[in-house]
C-alpha cells in the first residue's frame, strides 16, 4: 500500500512535535525541522498527485480499518491538486518568512513554527480526509492554530481581532457539526462516499435539507462569504506577516474546497440543483459579495486591508461559480481555487517584503517603492494584474471559465459582477502602483531620492519570483489543468 497520503499529513504533525522538543535545545533548530517536514510533505503531495493522475482515486485506510467504520483518507484529482497547492505554498512561505519572523516575533519563533506546522496539518487533513466528522476536527485544528498565530501579530489589535475571529469561527464550526449530526441521524454513516450513496435514496427528506443548509452555512462562515466576512479583514491585517501570507491564500480556499466537496461528493450536484431551489439566491449572494468586497476595498487606506477585502471579493467568484449549476462554472470555481491561491500568495509575499523593509503598509508609506524595491514590485504588479484578470496570467483564465459559465447559466448579473469587480480591482491596483511609482520616497534622503535600491533579502525575492513564474505557468497551462484534473473530476 502506498503510504504517501499518510506521510503527507503526518510529516508536518511529527515535525511539529520534534520542532517543539528541539526548541529546548536550540531555537534555530525548530525552523530547520519545520522546513524539512514541509519539504517531505510537499514531495509526498506531488507524488500523490502524479499517482492519482495516472492511476485514479487513492483510498488510504487509517490503521487499516475499512470504511465506513474506519477513517479513510480519500484522495481524488481535486484534493490532490489542492494538497499540492497547500504544501507548496506552506513550504515556500517558510523559506520566505524566516526573516520576517526574526524581525517581528523573534522571541517566540519556535512556537510560531510549531503552530504553523499544526496549521498546515489541519489544512492538509481537511483536504485529504474522506470522513465528515474528521473534517470538523481538522477544521478546528486549523482554526485553533490560526487563532493563536493571529494573536501573535500586532500587539494592540491582534488579540482582539483573534478573539472576534474565535467567536465567529466557533459559530461556523458548530453549524457544520450540527449539520453533520443531522446527516448522521438520517444516514447512520460519516464516511463521505458512504453518505453520498445512502443520500441518493432519501433526497426529499427535510432532515437532509437541514443538514445541507447547516453544513454549507458553517462553511460559508469559515470562508468569510459576505456578509459573514466581518472577522476576516482585521484578522488577516493584524496577523504577523509570516502567517498572514499563508492564511490569506489558503484558509479561505480550503474552505471553498470543502464546499465544493460537500456539493459534488456528498450531497451531489443533482440534489442541489434539481431538488433544491437555492442556486439563484446563492448566485445573487455571490454577486453581492463580489461587489461589496470590491467596493469596500476601494475605501481602504492600508495595503493589507485592501488585499483582505479583495479576498472577500474573490470568495464571491468561487461561490458564485460553484453555484451556477453547470460544469463550466464549477470548472472556473475549482480553477480559481488554485489561481487565487497563487495570486493572493504572491501579493502577500510582496507585502511581506515591503513590511520587512518599511515596517508599514499604509498607502502613505508606499511612496517610491518602484525605485527602491523593483523586484518586489515586479512580482506585486504581476500578481495584481492576475487579480485584475489580464492574460496571460492565471487570473484571466479562471475568469474566462466563470464568465462563460455565467453566460451558459444565463446569470448575466454574475458575469456583470465579475467584469465590474475586474474594473474595480484595476482601479485599486493602479492606485497603489501610482503611489509607488510617482511619489518620491520622502524618507530616502533629499538629495538622491529613491535612487538607492533597498531590496528585501534574496530568500524572499526568490520565493516571490518562483510564485510569479507559477502564476504565468498556471495561466499558460490552464487548458491542461482543466483537461487533466478538473474535467475528469467532475465527470
Amino acid at each position, binding site marked *: 500500500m502506498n503510504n504517501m497520503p499518510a506521510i503527507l499529513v503526518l510529516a508536518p504533525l511529527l515535525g511539529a512535535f520534534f520542532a517543539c522538543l528541539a526548541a529546548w535545545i536550540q531555537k534555530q533548530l525548530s525552523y530547520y525541522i519545520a522546513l524539512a517536514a514541509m519539504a517531505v510533505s510537499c514531495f509526498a503531495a506531488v507524488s500523490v498527485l502524479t499517482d492519482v493522475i495516472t492511476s485514479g482515486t487513492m483510498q488510504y485506510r487509517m490503521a487499516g480499518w475499512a470504511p465506513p467504520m474506519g477513517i479513510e483518507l480519500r484522495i481524488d484529482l481535486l484534493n490532490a491538486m489542492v494538497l499540492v497547492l497547500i504544501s507548496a505554498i506552506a513550504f515556500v512561505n517558510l523559506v520566505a518568512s524566516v526573516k520576517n519572523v526574526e524581525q517581528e516575533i523573534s522571541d517566540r519563533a519556535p512556537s510560531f513554527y510549531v503552530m504553523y506546522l499544526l496549521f498546515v496539518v489541519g489544512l492538509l487533513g481537511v483536504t485529504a480526509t474522506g470522513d465528515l466528522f474528521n473534517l470538523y476536527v481538522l477544521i478546528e485544528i486549523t482554526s485553533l492554530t490560526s487563532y493563536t498565530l493571529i494573536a501573535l501579530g500586532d500587539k494592540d489589535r491582534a488579540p482582539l481581532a483573534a478573539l472576534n475571529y474565535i467567536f465567529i469561527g466557533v459559530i461556523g464550526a458548530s453549524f457544520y457539526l450540527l449539520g453533520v449530526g443531522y446527516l448522521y441521524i438520517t444516514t447512520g454513516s460519516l464516511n463521505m462516499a458512504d453518505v453520498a450513496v445512502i443520500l441518493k435514496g432519501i433526497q426529499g427528506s427535510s432532515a437532509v435539507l437541514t443538514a445541507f443548509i447547516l453544513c454549507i452555512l458553517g462553511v460559508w462562515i469559515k470562508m468569510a462569504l459576505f456578509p459573514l466576512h466581518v472577522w476576516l479583514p482585521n484578522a488577516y491585517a493584524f496577523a504577523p506577516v509570516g502567517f498572514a501570507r499563508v492564511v490569506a491564500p489558503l484558509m479561505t480556499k480550503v474552505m471553498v474546497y470543502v464546499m465544493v466537496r460537500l456539493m459534488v461528493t456528498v450531497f451531489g450536484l443533482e440534489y442541489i440543483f434539481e431538488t433544491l431551489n437555492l442556486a439563484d439566491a446563492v448566485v445573487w449572494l455571490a454577486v453581492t459579495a463580489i461587489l461589496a468586497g470590491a467596493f469596500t476595498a476601494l475605501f481602504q487606506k492600508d495595503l493589507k486591508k485592501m488585499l483582505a477585502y479583495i479576498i472577500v471579493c474573490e470568495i464571491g467568484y468561487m461561490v458564485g461559480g460553484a453555484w451556477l449549476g453547470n460544469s463550466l462554472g464549477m470548472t472556473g470555481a475549482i480553477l480559481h481555487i488554485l489561481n487565487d491561491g497563487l495570486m493572493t500568495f504572491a501579493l502577500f509575499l510582496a507585502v511581506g517584503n515591503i513590511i520587512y523593509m518599511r515596517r508599514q503598509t499604509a498607502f502613505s508609506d508606499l511612496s517610491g517603492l518602484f525605485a527602491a524595491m523593483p523586484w518586489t514590485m515586479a512580482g506585486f504588479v504581476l500578481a495584481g*494584474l492576475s487579480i*485584475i*484578470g*489580464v*492574460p*496571460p496570467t492565471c487570473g484571466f*483564465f479562471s475568469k*474566462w471559465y466563470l*464568465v*462563460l459559465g455565467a*453566460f*451558459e447559466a444565463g446569470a448575466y448579473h454574475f*458575469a*456583470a459582477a465579475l*467584469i465590474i469587480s*475586474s*474594473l474595480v480591482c*484595476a482601479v485599486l491596483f*493602479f492606485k497603489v502602483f*501610482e503611489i509607488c*511609482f*510617482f511619489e518620491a520616497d520622502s524618507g530616502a534622503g533629499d538629495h538622491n531620492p529613491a535612487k538607492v535600491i533597498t531590496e528585501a533579502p534574496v530568500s524572499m525575492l526568490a520565493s516571490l519570483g518562483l510564485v510569479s513564474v507559477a502564476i504565468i505557468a498556471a495561466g*499558460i*497551462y*490552464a*487548458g*491542461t489543468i*482543466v483537461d487533466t484534473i478538473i474535467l475528469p473530476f467532475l465527470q
Partner: protein
Amino acid sequence: MEILISIKPLLTVLVPLLVIPILVSSSQKPNVREAWIFGAGFVMFFLVASMVPAVLSGSKIVFTLFELAPGADIAFQVDGLGMLFALVAGSLYIVTSLYSIGYMRGLKEHGQTRFVSFFALAISATMGAAFSANLLTLYLFYEILSLATYPLVAHHEDAKSRISARRYLVFILGTSIGLVLPAMIYCYHVTGTLAFSTAGIFAGQLSKPAATVLLLMFVFGFAKAGIMPFHSWLPAAMVAPTPVSALLHAVAVVKVGVFSIVRVITGIFGVDLLAHFNLGVVVMVIASFTIIVSSCIALSQDELKRRLAFSTISQLSYIVFGVALLSPSGQLGGVIHILMHAFGKITLFFCAGAIFVATGKKYISQMKGLGRQMPVTFAAFFIGSLGVIGLPPTGGFYSKWNLILGTLEAGQTIFMVVLLVSSFLNAFYFLPIVYQAFFGKGKDDLSGARVKIQEANLCLVLPLAITALASIGLFFFPQMFVDLITLGLNL
C-alpha cells in the same frame, strides 16, 4: 490555400522579448544596449520579411502555442493582413530606435533602460497582435501592449504624466475589460470558437439586436482605435517622450486598436453578416462623426503634438470607415491606410520631436520662420502632411482614392462628402504650419538677416528623412501591399 506550420511567428514575438533581459543587464553601457536593440530590430524584421514570399504565394503560416479550450487557443497565423501590419511596425521600429537614441540622449532623459525595455515589450506585443490567429490571442497581446505602454506614458514621473497615465489606463483598460472581454466570451459562448475566418464565425446564430450590441462593444471596446467618445486618452498620452508618440501613438498602439476592429469586422462577423444586417452603416456613422469632429478640434490646437494626436484620431477612423464600407475598394483603401498613414504620421511626429530637441519649441505659434532654420525637417513635415491629407506624390493619395472609390461602389455617396470635407480640414490644419515655417516671420527674426541652418542631430534627421522618402516611395510602389491585403481579406 496552403497551410504551413512554422515557428517563425513565435520567434518574431520572442526576439524583442528575449532581448529585454540583455537590455536591463547592459543598462550601464548605453552603446552596447543600443546595439542590441538594433540587432533585435533587424532580426525581427528579417524574420517578418522572410515570410513575405510564402504569404504572397497565397499560403498561410500557422503555429499553435498552447490550447486553452477547443476553439480558443493561443495561436499565431500569418496572413496578408497581419503581414502588412507586421511589416509596417517592424520596419518603423528600426527607424524609431535610431530616432529615440538621438531624442533620449539629446534631452538627457532619465530611465533610458526602462524606456527601451518597455518599448521592446510593446513592439513584441504589437507583433503578437499582428500575427494572432484568433480573438483570444489578439486580446492577450492587446492587453500586454496596453500595460507595456503605461510606463512609457508615465515616463516623466511628474504630476502631469500621472494624470495622463491614469486617463490612458482608464480608457484603454476600462474598455477592454468592460466591453471587449464580455463580448469576446459571449462570442465564444455562442459559437464555441474565436478563430478568424473570412466567412465569420456566426452561422446565423445571431439576431440583429445582439449583433448590433456586440459590434458596438467591440468597436468602442478597442479604445486604442480612438473612436469617439473613447479618444481622449490619445491627446493625453502625448506627454510621453516623442519616440513613444511617434511609433506607439501613431503606429503600433493605435493601429493595433484599428487592426483589432478590422479583424472583428472581417474575421469574426464577416462582411456578409454585416451587410445582411446593414450594420456597416452604423460603424460608418460613428467613424464619420469622429473624423469630422476630431479634425475640427485639431484645427484649434496650438501644441503641435496635440494637433497631430487629434489628426491621428480622425485618420484612424478613416480605416474603420473604409472597412465598414464592406466594399472591396473601401476595405482596400481602409486597410492600406494603416500603412500609408503610418509613414506619413510618424514623419510628422519625428519632425515635432526634432524641432523640440533642436529649439525646445512645442507650440505651432512659435514655429514661424523655423523652416529656414530647419529646412530638411520642414520639408519632411510637408511630405508627411501631404501623406496624411492624401495628395500625390505620397502613398496617402492611394488610400484616399480607394476610399472614395469604395463609397461610390457601396452607393454611399453621402459619405463621400465626409471624406472630402475632412481632407480639406486636414489641409487646413497642416499646410499653414509649413507655410508659416518657411515664409512666416517669427518675433525674434531680424528682417533680411540670413538664418543659419541649425538642424537637430543626425540621429533625428535621418529617420525623418527616411520615412518621408518612404512615404513618396509608397506612392509609386504600392502593389505588394495591395496584394497582401487582397489575399488577407479575400477580396
